[in-house]
């Protein structure tokens, strides 16, 4: 059914379709609407779940950790400061191989305190061992949440999945979203959770043991391997979703007008909409330009990136987070992927913009395209600063 839905409502509804048994959360802007919608669904009896409203994000993540270890489906959501407060637990969930699904309503990090969108929060947890997917619009966010449970619960993956959605830009914006009418069809796509190891009085395993130097590395290697393997499962989940529900946004990446492109803009999340509009205009003026969308940030789609960029001259990477003391984050990983494949004909230019909710305009994109032709391997330079505040 086609409906006009607020992003948060679309996400909550996607989560409802997956029928999680335990939900736990702590409010933080811009995640609040998602959990408010979910608690209303539980209050109205539209979702049969234990909703635990906790006293902190650390506990929200810990509650879903404990519940997930019992073998039930679990969900939480947070943003920004809340995510940083949770980080210790996210490492632990991943290390214990628990398939928790979580929404991250991407928001800037304090100080200065700022509730608006960028991706610094996501970048702060990129090494936790959680799979990190990024949605471009509300429809994809809805669909991606259903896929997330399937990926997380795959027996050969067993890792938490974090679905990134841009705070406000998606969470608080109304768009037409096509929801799935039949929960039975979702069940067919996403079978009931079935964990081999769980907290069960009939099979009493001990979880979270002390891993001494003799086994710690092997344990981490298994996680690392599972993360690598999840590439196949993310692609598979997207394809199966297409077969069943007709919608597809790419596997680990998606491409837009890439075929003959000499200039390629790489980005994640909602900014892709603005970029595609700008690219359409540039195409009309004869520019050979296209877009590479990163749908899975972890695992990192190295092969797809190399295949998409190897024939380009100029790559523009939109950085919505900064690594002080180094520069860009996404652009560094892209440059490294090309370097490893001995491709040195491509200039990868990372530009930092859109921090703390600063608009990224079509003009920004046009300017960057012009700029990148004259520059080489820019490492996360800030774009559009107000001189009066410097």
């Amino acid at each position, binding site marked *: 059914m086609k409906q006009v839905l607020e992003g948060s409502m679309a996400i909550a509804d996607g989560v409802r379709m997956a029928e999680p048994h335990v939900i736990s959360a702590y409010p933080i802007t811009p995640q609040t609407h998602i959990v408010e919608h979910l608690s209303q669904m539980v209050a109205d009896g539209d979702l049969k779940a234990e909703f635990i409203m*906790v006293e902190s994000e*650390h*506990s929200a993540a810990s509650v879903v*950790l*404990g519940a997930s270890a019992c073998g039930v489906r679990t969900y939480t959501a947070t943003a920004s400061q809340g995510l940083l407060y949770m980080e210790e637990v996210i490492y632990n969930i991943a290390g214990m191989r628990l398939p928790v699904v979580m929404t991250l309503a991407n928001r800037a990090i304090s100080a200065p305190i700022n509730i608006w969108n960028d991706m610094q929060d996501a970048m702060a947890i990129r090494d936790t061992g959680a799979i990190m997917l990024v949605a471009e619009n509300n429809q994809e966010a809805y669909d991606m949440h259903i896929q997330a449970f399937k990926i997380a619960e795959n027996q050969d993956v067993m890792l938490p999945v974090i679905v990134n959605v841009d705070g406000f830009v998606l969470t608080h914006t109304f768009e037409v979203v096509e929801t799935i009418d039949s929960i039975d069809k979702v069940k067919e796509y996403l079978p009931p959770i079935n964990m081999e190891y769980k907290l069960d009085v009939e099979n*009493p395993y001990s979880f*979270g043991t002390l891993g001494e130097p003799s086994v710690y590395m092997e344990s981490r290697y298994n996680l690392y391997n599972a993360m690598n393997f999840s590439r196949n499962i993310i692609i598979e989940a997207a394809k199966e979703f297409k077969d069943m529900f007709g919608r597809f946004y790419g596997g680990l990446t998606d491409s837009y007008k890439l075929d003959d492109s000499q200039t390629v803009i790489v980005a994640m999340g909602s900014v892709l909409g603005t970029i595609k509009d700008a690219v359409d205009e540039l195409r009309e003026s004869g520019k050979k330009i296209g877009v590479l969308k990163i749908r899975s940030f972890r695992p990192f789609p190295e092969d797809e990136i190399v295949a998409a960029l190897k024939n380009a001259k100029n790559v523009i990477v939109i950085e919505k987070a900064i690594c002080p003391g180094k520069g860009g984050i996404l652009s560094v990983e892209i440059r490294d992927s090309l370097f490893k494949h001995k491709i040195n004909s491509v200039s990868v230019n990372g530009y930092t913009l859109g921090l703390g909710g600063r608009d990224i305009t079509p003009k920004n994109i046009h300017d960057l395209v012009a700029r990148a032709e004259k520059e080489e391997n820019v490492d996360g330079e800030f774009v559009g600063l107000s001189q009066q505040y410097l």
Partner: protein
Amino acid sequence: MLTKEETHNEFFTMGHTGCSGCAQSMSVKLIMEILGKNTIATNATGCLEVFSTRWPESAWKIPWIHSLFENSAAVASGVEAALKAMGKKDGITVLAQGGDGGTADIGLQSLSGMFERNHDVLYVCYDNGAYMNTGYQRSGLTPFDAYTTTSPSGKESFGNNRPKKYMPEIAMAHRIPYTAVASAGYPMDLQKKVKKAKSIKGAKYLQVDVPCVPGWKYEPKYSVKLAQLAVQTGLYPLFEAEYEKIISVKKISKKVPVEEYLKLQGRFKHLFKGDAGRAEIEKIQKIADENIERFGLI
């Protein structure tokens, strides 16, 4: 009658690596005898977690999970919620465990949340009065004037300069159905309280005094004796409360001066030097006397 074979079938087994004479392992053994098979346990980081589950070994024969230092109560809340969601809560005890640090310091927030939401969880705090797992640093439950590695005694110091935080009363302030204080020195009393806690629905708090051989610095054979002396001096009042009301106290059978308790422990050794030390012992006696008065222990 208990046979050798039966001792191997306990739900908390031997073969763990706790110190010789550890009263924490003794208490866990006693508690698990009562709780039995249908128990799911969570555990904060700390001595118990480390000495009972060095992979691939585990001394637990019940489902058990360790996550982090400060979230045992929150993980237990999640376990309880999952059991409810599966319709399996009836007949299963959820046991959350932590040391004094994991409970009263870094874990206080998640514990308070669990209490306030009144999850059907029994939380047990094994109070050995310091961060033992990391080498005897001070915690909020370290007793007054005890030497720890971060509250050392010295020319300018008699050790920990603050009295022990009264954690059981913090639990009671949450108006949970049951709060109890027990001791490794009184196993029948401890087991009676566990039995009672097991029969009550909602959040329960049990704090157990568990002497620690290397932390308190005494000969391992004195673990029980010290736990009993802590009670008989009035320094560790044992009681039960329902909601905000104390319903029973363990009376002192024969009041013992605190000196008898202090002198067996290396952590109070510095108090037995000179007049200044004597004055400190007086202060500790005053703490004991106030407890005796306040809880009506005699």
